[in-house]
């Protein structure tokens, strides 16, 4: 009895709400994940050739970076509104907006990651007879991976949060629940959806961190030795930490003070560094 009272009393936290609206919550969460996931995957696929192009034609680099900065400055609501005439009221508006925002982060980080590959390593690979393709996929890309993944993590966490605004076109995943909850002053719905959003972001970040570690086992092996290097973990804007700051390897303690003027050291920092890219991102 008391359980259903929390609905009538419009409490912030309500078990009855969770039970009765389970389907609705799951649907919204799934939509949220689908929108965010599609956007980030598309953005990664697009960012890769863009970063390669920008690297190949140096003159393009400045243009690409300026353009991405401009895109990032556009507020979400405006972005979705601007895309409205192109796609009509649909999930495509939100996905496209998120792709544009994610590209900004990803292209920058990929470029920084690729730039961070030491020339010596490249030289050595060439000397061993690596062609450009093999050099890229076997040497440069793996070395740029920490930076790349740092970018993916920032982009994903941001996208999870920005998806909520998609409620304006009815495709905001959990944002839809927040939006309708606001109109009906339904506190439990608003709070539950908000918390789920944050949880999604944290879970996504931790999962991606796991992927990053699985993909770059050598970084970990070196962790013990390089773990106490300066920099890295404490960078503002460093993607190297979970939003909750909960993942051990990258807690600030792991890496001394922030070092804004240091050049992005290549990749001989632990994951914490999230790497050159995160640094570049942070304008270090």
């Amino acid at each position: 009895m008391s359980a259903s009272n929390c609905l009538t009393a419009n409490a912030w936290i309500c078990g009855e709400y969770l039970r009765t609206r389970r389907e609705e919550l799951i649907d919204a969460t799934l939509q949220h994940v689908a929108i965010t996931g599609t956007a980030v995957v598309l953005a990664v696929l697009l960012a890769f050739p863009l970063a390669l192009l920008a690297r190949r034609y140096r003159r393009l680099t400045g243009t690409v970076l300026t353009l991405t900065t401009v895109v990032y400055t556009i507020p979400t609501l405006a972005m979705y509104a601007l895309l409205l005439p192109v796609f009509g009221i649909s999930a495509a508006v939100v996905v496209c907006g998120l792709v544009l925002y994610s590209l900004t982060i990803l292209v920058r980080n990929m470029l920084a990651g690729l730039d961070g590959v030491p020339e010596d390593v490249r030289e050595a690979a060439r000397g061993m007879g690596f062609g450009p393709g093999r050099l890229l996929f076997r040497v440069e890309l793996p070395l740029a991976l920490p930076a790349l993944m740092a970018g993916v993590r920032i982009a994903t966490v941001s996208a999870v949060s920005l998806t909520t605004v998609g409620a304006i076109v009815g495709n905001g995943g959990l944002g839809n629940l927040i939006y309708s909850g606001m109109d009906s002053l339904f506190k439990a719905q608003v709070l539950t959806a908000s918390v789920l959003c944050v949880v999604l972001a944290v879970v996504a970040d931790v999962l991606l961190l796991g992927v990053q570690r699985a993909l770059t086992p050598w970084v970990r092996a070196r962790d013990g030795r390089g773990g106490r290097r300066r920099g890295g973990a404490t960078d503002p804007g460093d993607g190297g930490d979970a939003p909750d700051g909960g993942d051990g390897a990258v807690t600030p303690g792991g890496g001394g003070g922030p070092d804004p003027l240091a050049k992005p050291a290549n990749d001989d920092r632990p994951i914490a560094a999230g790497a050159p890219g995160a640094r570049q991102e942070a304008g270090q």
Partner: protein
Amino acid sequence: MNAFLDAWTWLTTADHWAGPGGIWTRLGEHLYLTGVSMVIACVLTLPLALWLGHTPVASGGGGRGKRLGSAVAVNITNAGRAVPTFAVLVVLMLTPLGEGGVTTPTVIALVLFALPPLLTNAYVGAAEADPDVVEAARGMGMSSRQLMLRIELPLAFPMVMTGIRTATVQVVATATLAALVGGGGLGRIITAGFANQNTAQVVAGAVLVAALALVVEGVLVVAQRLLTPGRGTGARDRAAREELPAEGREDGARAVGAPSGTA
């Protein structure tokens, strides 16, 4: 493309600029919200950030203070990225704070989202003040307070300004969301357009909001350049060195606050 032409027509109609719901009024509201929030955020954050950046040096270089500062900076930054502004706004609206109107919750949300870039940048600026210079100043017999105000603050200034710029652009962007909860500001033009199913107005509002964000960004870049102390001397090199990163920082820090930043 038609929608964009219609939007242009909407924008060039004099009626849409004047009056209580006109563009000028909305722009005024937008700037007011931004200004109030930024002042509050700066007052709350900058002293704390400078203190966090200063502490370890004063206490004889023990790493603890610095680590504390770093921990605060990193975690607040990451939290800022993960928490959706829109959600915070709506939650605040439904608390007793929202009963008095939309302005208070909006300002609180804006202040919250201005904190991470302000705090991290100012903190890093102060914490990274050249140790030799700090050492020299202490050798000259400067007190802790003098050290903070006369050495670390000026040295941190470019970073503080970067933080202010980033935060302001973010707040301008976030103030747009106030419209979603029924507040004022330019976002209102967009939401009103949605309500009337007037795509031209939606697009026109979006153009205005985007333009405002870009103009504010541009103005602050120039202001930062003009205000940086000691430019034209050796500091110019430093400024120049920071130029490229500053570009990146902007994004990084915005990535920091990205959820709110672009929200």
